[in-house]
């Protein structure tokens, strides 16, 4: 299959290894991966801030470059929700509506693509550690991704998966929310990190780097031993 990989701006800049692992995994599975350089952002920050015209300035370019792709795989549940759920709303009643609808149907969050589209759960990975999984809210509630990442983790050799209480509770990132209401965002993140630490896990894993950027930021600042990891990083470990 021809897979068009969409690496969002913050993954591209700060977490490039997440994208690299995805490329390796997809190529190992025999797919042809392309990554259009012109595509950088889904437009969600402006959209969530209420600036829909400005969001369309960014989304329009992304839509243009991805509209004919066979399958778009995206390295974030949140950006995935933007393409799958919010583009059709953003372009409702506009000439691009049909293209937005088509893109929505052909877009997959990475773990969902592996499990639901390809039917793959065992990637032959080995990761000897105790981990707990954090459900990113957009992936969980906008895209309905819950069991897929766990199925993938269960097949990883020597990995012990433990559920934290409140795995489905928001970590407090929320995009611009984290900067506009840092005190609430921080409190939410501390609650999340405490739930994860209570499991005794060494790693808190998620399929969304945005949540992990916020959580790792808190953990590092507070000198906590718990580490965060993107799911793709584990699935590509040997």
């Amino acid at each position, binding site marked *: 299959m021809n897979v068009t990989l969409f*690496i969002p*701006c913050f*993954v*591209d*800049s*700060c977490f*490039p*290894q997440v*994208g*690299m692992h995805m*490329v390796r995994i997809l190529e190992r599975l025999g797919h042809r991966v392309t*990554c259009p*350089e*012109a595509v*950088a952002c889904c*437009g969600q*920050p*402006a*959209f*969530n*801030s*209420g*600036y*829909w015209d*400005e*969001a369309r*300035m*960014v989304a329009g*370019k992304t839509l243009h470059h991805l509209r004919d792709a066979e399958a778009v795989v995206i390295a974030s549940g949140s950006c995935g929700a933007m393409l799958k759920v919010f583009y059709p709303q953003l372009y409702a009643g506009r000439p691009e509506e049909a293209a937005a609808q088509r893109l929505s149907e052909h877009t997959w969050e990475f773990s969902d693509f592996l499990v639901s589209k390809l039917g793959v759960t065992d990637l032959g990975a080995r990761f000897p550690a105790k981990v707990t999984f954090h459900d990113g*809210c*957009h992936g969980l*509630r*906008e895209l309905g991704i819950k069991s897929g990442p766990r199925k993938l983790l269960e097949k990883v050799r020597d990995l012990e998966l433990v559920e934290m*209480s*409140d795995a489905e*509770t*928001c970590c*407090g*990132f*929320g*995009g611009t*929310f984290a*900067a*506009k*209401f*840092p*005190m*609430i*965002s*921080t*409190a*939410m*993140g501390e*609650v999340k990190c405490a739930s994860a630490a209570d499991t005794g896990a060494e790693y808190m894993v998620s399929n969304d780097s945005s949540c992990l*950027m916020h959580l*790792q*930021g*808190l953990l*590092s*600042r507070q000198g906590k031993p718990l580490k965060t990891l993107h799911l793709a990083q584990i699935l590509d470990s040997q």
Partner: protein
Amino acid sequence: MSNAAQQFLEAAGTITRNLRHRGLIQTALRKYEVARDRKKSAFNDWSSARQSAAETKWDAINHLDTYLTEFTSKIEARGTKVHWCPTGPEARDTIRGIIRDAKAKCVVKSKAMTAEEIHLNEALEKDGFEVVESDLGEFIVQLRKEPPYHIVFPAMHLTRDEISDLFERELGSSPTREPEELTMIARRALRRKYIQADVGITGANFAIAETGMVSITENEGNARLTAALPRVMITLLGIEKILPKLEDLALFLPLLATAGAGQTVTGYNTLYGGPRQPGESDGPVEWHVVLLDNRRTELLADPEQRDALHCIRCGACLNVCPIFRNVGGHTYGTTYSGPVGSVITPHLRGLQDWKHLSNASSLCGACTEACPVKIDLHHHLLQNRRNAIGETPSWIERLAWRAHAFVINTPALYQFGQEVARIVEPLRLRLQGTPLDPVRSWTRTRDLPPVAPESFKEWWRNRR
């Protein structure tokens, strides 16, 4: 920034650092979740129950004119006086008039968020009436002279020790940590008031159009005493409380109890059909039903967010909201707090003054998932944000988003930005923790990941 927004930011800043508050609320609401899930499993199919309830409320709200007329004509036929009040002040004045006409001195009241919405108690107290809250939680917060913390659990922010201290100070009781004894102290104070009161004021959970009845749900029996003992009864309710048929309660009563408090059915569920009828020996001689609009019809006119009028005030969205769990009920500064409050307050009290509540959300969607009548709460927050910008855009922000779009859409500029970020990183680290740090709102509590030496796109290009 509005005064309300400023106050919200200040209050949130203080309370989110209060670890005692955090622990208290998180623990209480985790227990609620366990109880709620146990009761949810008693439904054959919870999601169908929600769907059915949403459809019933959709019908009720989209035919509100018909159902309200049916409700009032039925209830008036049994001698109830119905008052239509377009605004809060009109509802307040109507109730003041009824109390004056009854030559009342003491008023006893059961729980009614609608009364909080129109600031009824303050108005009545200003007139010289004694108003006593009979719901235990409301009684406690009234003694503390503060508004309810939560629409269903008004005093959930207080510990038994704090309540005991309050009772000792205000009622002269002996200290105790036993919930039963605390309840008995309140009961002794309240029983006297039921007998003294000339007027009882209640809220309502549902108004049944088909039979012309008001349904009140409670756990303490206090609303029954409030309705039954005084000579005059007043029921204040929002016009959205309508349910078409009596049999709808078969779903709505367990749904409300399960979603709101993790109960199978609430302790007391009473239907009121009219004042004392000829030949009856008890019940109020007069019954006044005060129907409140207070900009609900404006929300009804908004096809995108009309479903917010489905709300049955169960509090489920507050209970699961991670924002509510961290900032608590008082921080909102509104009658209705939590997600539903953030959605409807801009409609009830003005978008520009209250838009900050729609921004103070991570849009996680836990509220929408929990709502028993399927209000699309977190998407309404997004719409409120868009509508607020549509009314009065900030030109600085607009320019910033346009600049962002320009940079993101121009690969050379985007790469240049990454390069600059790499170069200034050592300087940024030196500024971290000082007022000169440009990303201080992030770095005050969190480390910021640096831009990687090689971005994904650079790696991709080199690899090919």
